[in-house]
């Protein structure tokens, strides 16, 4: 099924996208309201919360250019040393930008 984009069509498409996205924002909370929060579930949740980010970042790091990789490395090192996010992010961006100027 397709929708024509001129006129109202674009708005309908956007509303469908918004509904799908809202379902993802609400779905996890809704499902969890049926799950008793046992110690095992807590452990699942806390392991998953870091894993989401790791899973998001790994392909980016692997497929990125060397500038991106060095930037991520700089962020990780700065964060481990200083434990402050803003300097860590700044270090990553600066390293990426400098490398890409070369």
């Amino acid at each position, binding site marked *: *099924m*397709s*929708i*024509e*984009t001129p006129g109202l069509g*674009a708005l309908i*498409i956007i*509303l469908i*996208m*918004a509904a*799908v*996205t*809202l*379902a*993802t*924002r*609400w779905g*996890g*909370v*809704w*499902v*969890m309201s049926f799950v008793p929060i046992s*110690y*095992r*579930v*807590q*452990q699942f*949740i*806390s*392991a*998953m*919360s*870091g*894993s*989401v*980010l*790791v*899973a*998001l*970042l*790994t*392909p980016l790091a692997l497929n990125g250019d060397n500038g*991106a990789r060095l*930037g*991520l490395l700089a*962020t*990780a090192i700065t*964060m481990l040393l200083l*434990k402050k*996010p*803003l300097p*860590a*992010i700044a270090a*990553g*961006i600066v*390293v*990426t*930008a400098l490398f*890409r*100027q070369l």
Partner: protein
Amino acid sequence: MSDVNPPLHELNPHNVWTGFKQLVPLSLFVVVFGVAFGLAATQTGLDNPSIIAMSALVFAGASQFASLELWGAQVALLPLVITVFAINARHLLMGATLYPWLRHLPPAKRYGVMLLVSDANWAMSMQAFSRGEPGMGLLFGGGLAIWSFWILGTWLGLYFGSAIQDPMSLGLDMVMSCFLLAMVAGGDKSLRLLIIWIVAAVAALLAYWYLPANSHVVVGALAGGILGALWMENKR
């Protein structure tokens, strides 16, 4: 996170405003992404009200960019729905991870707060919660900051988008990745977590190579989560 104290989930105007302010620095970069999206969307041929409406109502950058790839005189609905769902499926996991704190809120507030969940405010609030600090203001106030700056950026992109010559050469594409990595590196660390993350990374890569597009985040996160549930920390 063995103990959930009631004050941690408190949501009041004061901590919402504090959360808003804490995410303003990052939101300035969100403006740049918004500009890039606004520009890309005009170039794809969407009209201005539609573009602003998309940023305001969908509020999920990666899926909005992906929808532009599918845009034309006609848009096939099923591929669009699948793409948007797959890219945004990580929200399901974010909602689940927030549930131990969200469950203390009445349903209207609980689902109201979730309207504005995105990567950055979720990561900040989870970090606060896991340190035993209140995080609900960060989640909602921070979400308000990111949402409003995202719309502002989109709007600027409609008119001034072409002013940014080459965001890549300035490293601006790396802001969100570096931020999320900083959240990982700043959290708890242990041998158990390190192994869980390695498993998540390997699973994500395998899914990235061999499974349908955009499935890798969910696959990797679930792999890490399941390992965490099987190999539990000793109860303190």
